[in-house]
């Protein structure tokens, strides 16, 4: 088993309603204007086999991310 961390983020250019709402709220709480606040998901999993990165990529394509609106990145623990 290899530890893999998948990060799923709204694709560049796709509206992120959650990020937008939180950015407005931070401003209102006195933190001032923040740029490019985007909210995604972090998924941790242990992947079997000798190609954990490829396996994780296939999982992202099949389920973990929606390629129409989300990008993903994969980090394999050394």
């Amino acid at each position, binding site marked *: 088993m290899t530890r893999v961390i998948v990060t799923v983020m709204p694709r560049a250019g796709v509206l992120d309603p959650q990020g937008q709402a939180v950015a407005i*709220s931070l401003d209102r709480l006195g933190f001032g204007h923040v740029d490019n606040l985007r909210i995604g998901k972090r998924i941790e999993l242990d992947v079997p086999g000798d190609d954990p990165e490829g396996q994780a990529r296939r999982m992202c394509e099949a389920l973990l991310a929606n390629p129409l609106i989300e990008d993903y990145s994969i980090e394999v623990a050394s």
Partner: protein
Amino acid sequence: MIAVVRFPGSLDHDSAAKAVHAAGGTATFAWQDDAELPAGTTGVILPGGFSYGDHLRPGAIASRAPIMGAVRRFAEAGGRVLGICNGFQVLCEAGLLPGVLRTNTTLSFVCRQVHLDVADGDTALTRGLAPTISVPVKNQDGNWLGDPATTRVVFRYHGENPLGSTDAVAGVANARGNVVGLMPHPEEAVDALLGSTDGLPLFRALVAA
């Protein structure tokens, strides 16, 4: 005068005000940016809805709004505060009630009529209620997680536990009993034409303060 607090994304403020009227009281709206509750406020309702779109965590952003300072002071002085659905979530996020509300174990929004057992009829707000009441529940994140042993539980689901909450808890109060929050909607159970009037005593108690 009952102050119904509105946040961006509040939905049930009009229904809450109607319930206050049905209970013989008068209601006014307070806005999230107000520093103080309206003069003459004798009770507060935090209504249902999706304040701030439920972003980050339900109730999290609204609980940091300026009006919540005034609500906290009002509650600490013994004023009666009722949080319904999203209002309950706001009260938990604000630390005025114990526990947190997580996503339903069904992982979906649930809208249905349920029966509640009144587990504690001795609070200022729950005093006049029948032992079991029929009210609608409708939410996505109503799964209360907390310690029933140290919490003043006021409502439990009767029969099935539709959202998967700890010990079937549907609503809780603070230790003093003047702040009550629940996920189901008593303001939608004050009109026989809509199927139930079981929620009316809750609003009568709020108005009577």
